[in-house]
């Protein structure tokens, strides 16, 4: 150790300015690090404004004096465990409050009301056959009311009376239905909208048929029946429907299930189209972004730099953000998603392709040239075999990534499963949401597996 340092002076310096004592003993980096660390910690605590936390920078300050004295005394400082632990403790505690971690808001019942339907994903349902019947009624009573009767395929429906005002009671009699079964009855106004005829939340009345397949029920003409009718004096008739349905064995896609399948096809298709579009642009661009091809003269070098910079900028913008822009330009739907994914993929693929080109082995090119081959033959036999397998591998990998991104892009209106998912969340159909989740997981896992297998073979 060169030159004796005064422990007292070292301690005093560190008290006045943290790290100064260490600096004085010759440990310059340590001194600067302690100064910066103390300043950051003190700044954080002061910014947070909680008095009790001031103890942390004080601990660090005291440790810093001790450290400086030790350095001057024996040439060796104290373990940095203490200030690091104190700093981490403060960071953790402040971080906890800054991000508002608070479990008191958690509501298990709400969680269960969402999660329980998710256990039964709405994908498939039992196949059913339907038995339907209707009869017309005039509201309010005008000239030439309908007969109030309807006969169809051995079924007969009668409404009494055949015309009525809003709120008046009517009697419905239907015969020829399947016996002993729950039957839904509902009201449709002339524009085809359902109107509430049952108390409670459902717009349907549920009635059970008797042993002979007959039902009789009484209900008032819905108070809302005329809301959508522009002119009550020339109103076309309203209809009362009855419907039974019974399983006939086997299963089929539910309505949501069908939509999920359609969405899945669109999502994979979006990813595929985006990747194909990206290939067309990325292949030529990648040659411009390959250092070994473009370092020949200043002009190509400038092109290289410009292309590289553009690709880097484009690559740093999330496809979700690009999708929002394209939704504005071309409207909602898969096309906007495809364009967003394609733009992002062009940048990503061009970069990967250009790295393949940069990594090409010049040996085979030289060897094929030495055989007396022409330029196209050299490209065909020495260049293409080297770049096509990695190009293909990267492209499939990109398709795989694009399938994931396609679901995300759908959230902002890009179509496919993402769009369906947002719609289902809006109408609170958690069984449908669950079906979408499962299909996303299956597709992503399948793509991941397939692309890994293919890439394994190519590289």
């Amino acid at each position, binding site marked *: 150790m060169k030159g004796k340092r005064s422990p007292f002076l070292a301690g005093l310096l560190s008290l006045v300015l943290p790290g100064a004592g260490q600096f004085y003993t010759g440990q310059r980096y340590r001194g600067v690090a302690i100064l910066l660390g103390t300043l950051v910690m003190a700044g954080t605590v002061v910014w947070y404004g909680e008095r009790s936390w001031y103890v942390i920078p004080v601990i660090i300050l005291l440790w810093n004096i001790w450290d400086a004295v030790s350095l001057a005394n024996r040439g060796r400082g104290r373990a940095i465990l203490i200030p690091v632990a104190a700093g981490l403790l403060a960071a953790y505690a402040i971080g906890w409050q800054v991000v508002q971690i608070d479990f008191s808001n958690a509501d298990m019942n709400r969680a269960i009301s969402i999660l329980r339907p998710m256990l039964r994903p709405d994908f498939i349902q039992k196949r059913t056959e339907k038995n339907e019947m209707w009869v017309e009624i005039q509201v309010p009573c005008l000239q030439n009311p309908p007969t109030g009767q309807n006969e169809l395929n051995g079924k007969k429906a009668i409404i009494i009376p055949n015309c009525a005002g809003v709120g008046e009671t009517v009697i419905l009699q239907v015969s020829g239905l399947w016996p002993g079964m729950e039957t839904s009855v509902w009201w449709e106004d002339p524009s085809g909208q359902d109107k509430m005829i049952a108390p409670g939340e459902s717009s349907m009345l549920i009635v059970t048929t008797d042993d002979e397949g007959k039902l009789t029920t009484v209900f008032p003409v819905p108070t809302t029946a005329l809301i959508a009718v522009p002119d009550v004096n020339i109103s076309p008739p309203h209809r009362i429907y009855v419907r039974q349905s019974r399983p006939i064995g086997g299963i089929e896609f539910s309505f949501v299930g069908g939509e999920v399948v359609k969405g899945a096809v669109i999502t994979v298709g979006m990813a595929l189209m985006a990747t194909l579009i990206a290939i067309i642009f990325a292949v030529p661009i990648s040659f411009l972004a390959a250092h070994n091809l473009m370092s020949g003269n200043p002009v190509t070098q400038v092109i290289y730099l410009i292309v590289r910079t553009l690709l880097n900028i484009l690559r740093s913008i999330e496809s979700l953000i690009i999708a929002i822009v394209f939704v504005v330009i071309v409207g909602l739907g898969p096309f906007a998603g495809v364009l967003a994914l394609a733009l992002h993929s062009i940048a990503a693929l061009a970069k990967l392709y250009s790295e393949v080109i940069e990594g090409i*082995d010049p*040996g*085979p090119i*030289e*060897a*094929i*040239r*030495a*055989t*007396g*081959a*022409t330029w*196209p*033959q050299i490209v*065909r*036999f*020495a260049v293409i*075999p*080297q770049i096509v*397998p990695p190009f293909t591998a990267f492209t499939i990998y990109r398709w795989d990534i694009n399938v994931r991104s396609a679901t995300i892009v759908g959230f902002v209106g890009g179509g496919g499963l993402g769009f369906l998912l947002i719609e289902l969340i809006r109408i609170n159909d958690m069984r449908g949401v669950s079906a979408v989740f499962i299909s996303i997981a299956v597709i992503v896992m399948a793509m991941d597996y397939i692309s890994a297998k293919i890439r394994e073979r190519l590289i």
Partner: protein
Amino acid sequence: MLRLENVSKVYPNGTKALNKVSFEVADGEFLVVIGLSGSGKSTLLRCINRLIEPTEGKIYLNEIDITAASPAELRRIRRSIAMVFQQFNLVKRSSVMNNVLSGRLGYANPWLSLLGIWPEEEKQRAIKALERVGIEDKADNRADALSGGQQQRVGIARALMQEPKILLADEPVASLDPVLSHSILQYLEQLNKEGITIICSLHFLDLVHRYATRVIALKDGEKVFEGEAKEIDRAKFKEIYGEEAQEIRAATL
């Protein structure tokens, strides 16, 4: 006969790789080029088939000036000058068969070859070439699945497809162990006996003594020795390789 007259090469960065090198190679010779790494051996070999353009000088093959050849003529000349490389220079992802067939590109129908279609007789020729180097059973393997010695044999088979008059070998055994070195050089010796002129750069003195009919030595791009292999003794070797150089013996097999 191959004749070089005052061949020089200056690279764009100013490096003088060759300086007025002249010599003749008679048909059927096994000429070995020795010299330190960076002495210009590789540049010299590549100037002969103009993989590297010499900046000065003339190279004649049977009195035809290679340095003045048009691109089409040059390809025709290259066809008769095969080359094997230190790093084998195979297309690693392609099959052994495709690597060997690519040696025939100088003769092939340009359109069919671009489609990767080869006539049956060329495929037979490739099988025969692989049989000559003893690896016909590897025809369908990927080139990078082979060991170093096997890859160099594929390189020789590819060269054979050219039915060459001259074979340039740029340190063909520098990446191989001594046992394999001998086996590869014995293939070259066999081809030499069948009338192919061999121009080969080597590093090990005992390999030079064993295989060369004649030797030239390069130092800093200049020819510093030309003569028979037995004329190179330890003293000469030190002169070529510098005072500190120790002769490293390849295994005495």
